[in-house]
């Protein structure tokens, strides 16, 4: 979600009127903008991911003008002349280029600042930080057409913001943009936009030239997009072009693309023409859940910048023209959302559809709840721990099999616990040390991740700590727990020496199915965890308990 800064006076002149803070705040809510700061003459807001047109003052002003009814939406007029860009020698790894021209703009410092903010925000959010799409703006009157988009082994020009001629290598080393985006170009195969006089427009996606830059004197703006994703590029170009147009322009020209047999200026023409979507009153009512009067719909739509071309009021159909900068609109439901916004979400209410069946808990949760009740009755206090845990701790305890994430933020939260006992052991140690406890009984019901299948399993684990604690205590607790659920546990010697003293550990079976372990913790672990009394632990599969309990029904 990019943060955009606009000056209130610039906004006012673009809209055509001053706006009070109250009106602005209400409009911001409708446009999904989250105001982060209002200071003197500037407002900063967070724009949503889908409204690229609102990443600068131009698009915001346009949207506001439609909302308050100061402007009626209109299709964009554009033409194709003789000007072209030759892409026949374009670099193979960034082969696409599209260009438009916007004539008759009036720019000042703030206007230029806004257009560059739009370019920057688009680069960061939707252009994959220039990797997928790179945008360039130039003063048309400094450029001699035709323009060439070609791959060059090297070139020297004065990059934007500098005063000396630099080679590509120097640009990549010495300039900020060169260092940041140098990895997007291949050495010796640099993309270059250059005019027929050999004047460099830019080295996309890295940096423009100083010679052809946009200034306050610029009256006609040339816009280009180059990159790897043609459909994305054209959407971006549409947003950029229509925003530049807001600065007082009189015409838009589409530059021909020559030297390619696909992805030529036709794509730009199609996109700038906008698209048509038909929305039905039936769908509006069905999706929103309110009876929306047909008469109100065209006005709502116009308030969002749509042109309502045809209204078949008998059938309740609206043919709507969607402007090219609304890249988020892909079907009629997008129009329905805008209508709902016009209605004000807080006013949408009514009786909720009743359920067609009764509510039901998942069986695992029912079993878990009963396990917790019994364990509390046996004097165990419940704790919770994370599934993400420390792989080094697991290894130290003797757990060798567990899944790790490839991109952890912290190593102590990079492994997926294969059992509950490691964290239970830690919880015992923490509490005993913190409170100087002589005895403690805790339990946890939680999920573990199976190291082999990566599946989720639910287990219950418990700890009995204190002088004189032996395996008997663990057996007594687990036996009571399982018998109260109607199961008959059988204890058999376990060969488990992970955590436990092998001779003093047991498996738990019910109807021949192994479902858990109980054991006395080996002194080496007690010493490591700074515990001075014996500790008995158990861990049982709740999934298997649930299955066994279900078998009982039959």
């Amino acid at each position, binding site marked *: 979600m990019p943060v955009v800064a606009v000056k209130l006076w610039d906004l006012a002149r673009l809209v055509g009127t001053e706006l009070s803070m109250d009106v602005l705040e209400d409009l911001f809510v409708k446009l999904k903008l989250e105001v982060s700061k209002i200071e003197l003459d500037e407002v900063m807001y967070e724009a949503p991911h889908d409204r690229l047109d609102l990443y600068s003052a131009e698009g915001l002003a346009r949207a506001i003008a439609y909302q308050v009814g100061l402007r009626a939406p209109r299709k964009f007029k554009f033409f194709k002349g003789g000007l072209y860009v030759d892409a026949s020698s374009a670099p193979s790894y960034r082969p696409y280029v599209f260009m438009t021209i916007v004539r008759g703009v009036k720019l000042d410092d703030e206007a230029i600042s806004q257009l560059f903010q739009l370019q920057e925000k688009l680069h960061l959010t939707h252009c994959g930080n220039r990797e997928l799409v790179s945008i360039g703006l130039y003063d048309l009157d400094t450029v001699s057409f035709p323009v060439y988009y070609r791959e060059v082994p090297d070139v020297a020009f004065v990059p934007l913001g500098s005063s000396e001629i630099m080679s590509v290598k120097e640009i990549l080393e010495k300039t900020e943009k060169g260092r940041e985006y140098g990895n997007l170009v291949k050495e010796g195969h640099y993309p270059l936009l250059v005019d027929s006089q050999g004047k460099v427009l830019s080295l996309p996606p890295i940096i423009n030239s100083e010679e052809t830059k946009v200034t306050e004197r610029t009256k006609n703006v040339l816009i280009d997009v180059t990159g790897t994703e043609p459909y994305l590029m054209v959407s971006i170009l549409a947003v950029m072009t229509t925003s530049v147009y807001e600065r007082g322009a009189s015409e838009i020209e589409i530059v021909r693309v020559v030297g390619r047999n696909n992805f030529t200026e036709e794509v730009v023409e199609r996109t700038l023409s906008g698209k048509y979507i038909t929305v039905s009153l039936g769908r509006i009512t069905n999706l929103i859940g309110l009876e929306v009067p047909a008469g109100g719909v065209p006005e709502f739509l116009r308030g969002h910048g749509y042109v309502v071309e045809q209204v078949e009021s008998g059938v309740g159909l609206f043919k709507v023209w969607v402007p090219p900068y609304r890249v988020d609109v892909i079907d009629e439901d997008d129009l329905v959302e805008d209508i709902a916004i016009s209605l004000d979400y807080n006013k949408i209410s009514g009786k909720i559809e009743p359920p067609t069946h009764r509510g039901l808990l*998942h069986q695992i949760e029912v079993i878990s709840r009963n396990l917790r009740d019994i364990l509390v009755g046996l004097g165990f206090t419940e704790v919770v721990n994370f599934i993400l845990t420390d792989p080094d701790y697991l290894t130290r305890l003797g757990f060798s099999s567990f899944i790790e994430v490839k991109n952890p933020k912290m190593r102590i939260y990079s492994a997926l616990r294969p059992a509950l006992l490691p964290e239970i052991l830690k*919880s015992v140690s923490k509490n005993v040390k913190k409170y100087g406890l002589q005895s403690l009984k805790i339990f946890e019901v939680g999920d573990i991740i199976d190291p082999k299948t990566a599946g989720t399993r639910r287990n219950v684990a418990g700890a009995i700590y204190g002088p004189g604690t032996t395996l008997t205590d663990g057996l007594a607790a687990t036996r009571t727990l399982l018998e109260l659920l109607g199961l008959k546990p059988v204890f058999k010697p376990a060969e488990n020496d992970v955590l436990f003293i092998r001779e003093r550990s047991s498996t738990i079976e019910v109807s021949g199915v192994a479902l858990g372990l109980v054991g006395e913790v080996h002194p080496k672990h007690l010493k490591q965890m700074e515990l001075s009394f014996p500790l008995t632990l158990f861990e049982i599969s709740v999934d298997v308990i649930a299955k066994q309990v279900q078998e009982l029904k039959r």
Partner: protein
Amino acid sequence: MSEQRKVKLPARQYSIAKIVLELKVAKVSEVARLAGRREQDIMRDIAELERMGLIKLSRRTFYKIELSELGKKYLADGLPEEIVLRELAKDMREPIAVLRNIGLSNNEFEAALGILRRFGAVRVHEGYVELMPSNISKVLEYIQEIKEELRRYSSPNIVSELPSSLKEVRRRGLVEVKEYKELVVEATDFLASNFEVLTPGEVVTVITPEIISLENWDSVEFKPFDLSVEPPKLPVARKHFFTEVINYMRELMVSLGFEEVKGPHVELELWNFDALFVPQYHPSRRPSDVYIIGSTAPLEPHVADLLNAIGKYHREFRGYKWDQERTLRLVLRTHCTAVSIRTLWERGPGEYRVFTIDRVFRPDTPDPTHLMEFHQLDGIIVGPRVSFKDLLEFFREFSRGLGLGEVRFKPAYFPFTEPSVEGYVRHPRLGWIEVLPGGMFRKQVLEPLGLKGYNVAAWGIGIDRVAMILMEISDIRDLYTDDVREIERTPVPRVVLNAGRSG
């Protein structure tokens, strides 16, 4: 003779009262010695007797006065002014220089000279000290008084008040005064006048089998219970307050007619992202925003067709190069909406509502408002007539069920819903906070799953935040505590207690 009703005092207290009455006033240490017990052991009984008005306990200050080293020396060898006088008496007059060398320190000589001059017993003139016989008697008196005082304290003296005569010797550092406090008990008039009525005997504090087996209980005296003492706190085994809150939310959802479903924590990108129409270039799919397991799941046959359908929608509607293999990559799910989508795929068209409350993961470092592992409550309402209004009404109902009050809505954006909404509730301190995100699943999500013509209301609530509001906890990490004292002490969450209908 009428039978007088005797008042029973526990034997220990009776003997103390008797001793204090005899001594009238005594130090507690003295009373303890006579009672044959330790001072700290009789304090409870003394407090009892005081409460009954039989004795008065007070702290008195005592002073121990004894000679300092200097004082002892002067008592033995004589005061410095005495020594100077003795020397002067020989010739009535001596040079100062000579007098400085008679075995006194400089300070002592100056002090002695000062005293003699004060009384007018000497005159200092042109380097000579002259004796003035007419004024000698006064200083001799002074010296006598000092020496008497010193003699008095040649062995340590304990007094309750400092005598005024002590002032001068104290000023000259000849005595040491140590102050200390002692507990003192006094018999009250009440004790004195009522002692005959007292008798040693026990009062019952605990019922024993012997007492139960008595014929009658007329002679049994029950000790009145002292309710001013705070009763002990009992240790108690408890359920964790966070699981209680989560389980309450489960019950709330069940009461609204939802079935609980569950899904895996380790999830395919298909269910976590692609089936939700989240493009593969979306920021939420970057390694900074999702934990990657690094392996892939096998392609199951019935999923292959689904993948084709999903891919078609991504390519057509989002216009980018969609990679089918990526969908089988395993990640830790970033939201429980993956479970909702799985359920839609499994159940297909129909009229039903399901929910899940479970853990999700996002790469983050723990701090008061963020965790890398937290809970979400995701749910869907499916049906041909389900609408956005139903979603908003559900949020209002859910908020009511948690006692969160009014909900206000703002338009929002999610890649998989249209319309989308963010619901806000009012926190007493923080104001309006967003806690209820949701929307209607897009056609591009529903159609590949075979739900054409159906509407699905969907949401994914971050319930840790909600729990923090309900329990007035300001650090999210406290929800996942394993501190047994915290868990035992935390009262039953109010949201759980207020679950019922009142009145």
